[in-house]
């Protein structure tokens, strides 16, 4: 007779039970047996969950006292990181952009370069660690790769169009680039393209104004400070105008000129593989778009994007190489045993599995004492430039640009590309961005 009341009580009761019952179940997962350390790895590399899971499994096999929970890639990278922290599940090891690590530096554990982590000093050149340091010089990140940005070229396409042998070292100024584009166009092939997305235009292309063209790290810092306080005017700055002249050249011959903001790297990769277009402002990671579609006989490479009119400016021949994403270790929600295990995992992923990592991610590596053959032809070129020392500083790009730089100024560059803003207006907008920082 009281059946229904009972039913309603059971229902509400069941909820409470479910909540309570689930607590021990959870603890079961989290519980640390005395001799076992449980850690977690979070990466922001899309499309490689399987590879990382495999690495973790191998690591656990080699270190039976450590369990690694791999946190799958999530497209909302930073939000995911924040919620992990907010929920008390801060990953022991995270693979993040340098600028994100800096935002979270209060939670991070520094590497002990003079102690257990001295391998980092032996393996990683100081120039590749600079962006992961705080003011006191403590290191909070280990880069997992070096990448380059510049002009990808399809040598075969260029030579077919111009009828001449192509040597990238002959492109010493933006005038040379213009001439080359003209020659390719006369040969009936579209010379070059932009992928009109904000990260490529706003972060990669625009960062060239603040990078090596300004000089070393200190000079880059000083330039940005002067833009911020207004003592330098971007509009009349030589670096800005040189870089934008190059921009205009690429825009003039742009394969995507009909609809410049489509911004589909896959379609652009296919166009390049088909031989419809000869050069592409992108980076050596562009191989991942080309790899599956590229003609096996075609020869690909990447070269520096010339930034000034003078053939004497060394920067025109220096590739913009930067340490991409770094492994950082959490010190706020992970105890010392976990931190130590995490650092061990970092060494394992970077050094011990260097070759596998390079193969899996098609990347060049920043480690001095590992012998790795890089499969990606573009990453190979990057490595060659590094070996020759023909690289420009990208300190500003990695360490000085705020985390919303690419989206805010990417919007400006897109408007410039579509002709909705002239060069001075773009300069003013970017300067205004800096002054609001």
């Amino acid at each position, binding site marked *: 007779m009281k059946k229904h009341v009972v039913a309603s009580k059971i229902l509400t009761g069941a*909820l409470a039970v479910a909540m309570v019952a689930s607590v021990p179940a959870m603890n079961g997962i989290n519980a640390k047996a005395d001799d076992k350390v449980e850690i977690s790895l979070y990466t922001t590399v899309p499309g490689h969950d399987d590879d990382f899971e495999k690495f973790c499994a191998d690591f656990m096999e080699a270190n039976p006292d450590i369990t690694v929970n791999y946190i799958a890639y999530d497209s909302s990278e930073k*939000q995911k*990181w*924040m919620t992990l922290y907010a929920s008390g599940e801060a990953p022991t090891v995270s693979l993040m952009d340098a600028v994100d690590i800096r935002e979270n530096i209060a*939670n991070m554990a520094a590497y002990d370069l003079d102690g257990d982590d001295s391998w980092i000093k032996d393996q990683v050149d100081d120039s590749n660690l600079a962006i992961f340091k705080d003011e006191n010089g403590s290191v909070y990140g280990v880069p997992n790769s070096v990448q380059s940005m510049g002009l990808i070229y399809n040598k075969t396409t260029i030579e077919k169009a111009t009828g001449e042998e192509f040597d990238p070292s002959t492109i010493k100024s933006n005038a040379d680039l213009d001439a080359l584009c003209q020659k390719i166009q006369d040969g009936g092939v579209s010379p070059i393209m932009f992928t009109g997305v904000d990260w490529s235009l706003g972060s990669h292309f625009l960062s060239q104004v603040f990078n090596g063209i300004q000089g070393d790290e200190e000079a880059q810092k000083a330039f940005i400070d002067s833009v911020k306080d207004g003592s330098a005017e971007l509009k009349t700055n030589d670096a800005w105008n040189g870089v934008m002249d190059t921009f205009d050249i690429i825009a003039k011959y742009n394969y995507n000129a009909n*609809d410049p903001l*489509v911004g589909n790297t896959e379609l652009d990769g296919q166009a390049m593989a088909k031989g419809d277009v000869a050069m592409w402002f992108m980076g050596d990671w562009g191989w991942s778009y080309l790899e599956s579609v590229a003609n096996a006989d075609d020869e690909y490479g990447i070269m520096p994007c010339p930034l000034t009119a003078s053939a004497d400016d060394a920067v025109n021949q220096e590739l913009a190489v930067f340490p991409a994403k770094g492994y950082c270790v959490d010190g706020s929600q992970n105890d010392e045993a976990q931190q130590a295990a995490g650092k061990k995992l970092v060494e394992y992923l970077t050094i011990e599995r260097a070759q596998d990592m390079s193969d899996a991610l098609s990347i060049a590596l920043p480690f001095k004492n590992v012998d790795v053959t890089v499969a990606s032809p573009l990453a190979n070129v990057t490595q060659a430039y590094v070996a020759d020392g023909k690289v420009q500083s990208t300190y500003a790009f990695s360490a000085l640009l705020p985390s919303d730089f690419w989206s805010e100024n990417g919007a400006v560059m*897109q*408007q410039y590309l*579509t002709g909705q803003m002239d060069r001075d207006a773009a300069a003013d907008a970017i300067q205004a961005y800096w002054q609001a920082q």
Partner: protein
Amino acid sequence: MKKKKNEIKLFCEFVIPPMLIWASIVVLPLIYGIYLTFTNWNGLSPDFDLVGFTNYVAIFKDKTFLSSLWKTFVYVFFVVVFSNVLGLALALLLTYGIKLQGLFRTCFFAANMIGGVVMGYIWNYIFSFALTKVGAVTGWGLFQKSWLTSPGTALIALIVVAVWQLSGYLMVIYVAGLTNVSQDMLEAARIDGANGRQLLRYIKIPMIRSSVTICVFMAISRAFMSFDVNLTLTAGGPFKSTELLALKIYQTAFSNFDYGKGQAEALVLFVIVAIISLVQVSVSKKGEVQA
């Protein structure tokens, strides 16, 4: 005395559990969330400071916030108008008594069966690949460029997709309202010589005023909260021209590590929507025919 005791018991059994669960999930975090708007927390750091109304002041000085707010108003206006007009039109057509009515209703409602994220993706393919293909084959200028690459058409694309989904939802409610319109009354009016237009104007529309109230309320709140489709269809682009408020909030809080400010923006959005829907509901309630 016993009755009162019984009523309290009933209240405790029937109202307290759902309200308690709801409050623990919505009210408690909301209060904590309001507190966070007065801080400079970056979303990660273990410590943060109270900064008073700094975030709110910053919002109203922020030109990008104000322009996003303006765009959101434009978007909401068109979505609310078109989805209601189309929803009502569909409902009228689908209560006309044609064959396969049920099947058609299912077709129009279908868009509501999939999540916004997935829907944004589907339409992204359609605008980027299918329609440009149509443009290339037919030579129609309208479709030769992707709609997602210039500011005006990208906003239109967002509105089209929102209307496409919402009108099917509203149609269901309008169909319900129309079916409620008494057949006797329609018959009587018809015998008095009223034509189709007059039936609509003087009988159907007044009788479904309450459906209009509900539908406009739903359209307003849904349109203001648009996030998923915005993210996967245009991601705010090109050059932030379609960054509606909900997406803007997300960017501020999570991409720019400015959690306190993002939270404050979200609260401003909440207050705006609450005021607008309150005004709308009370105004249109006044105009409703007492049924």
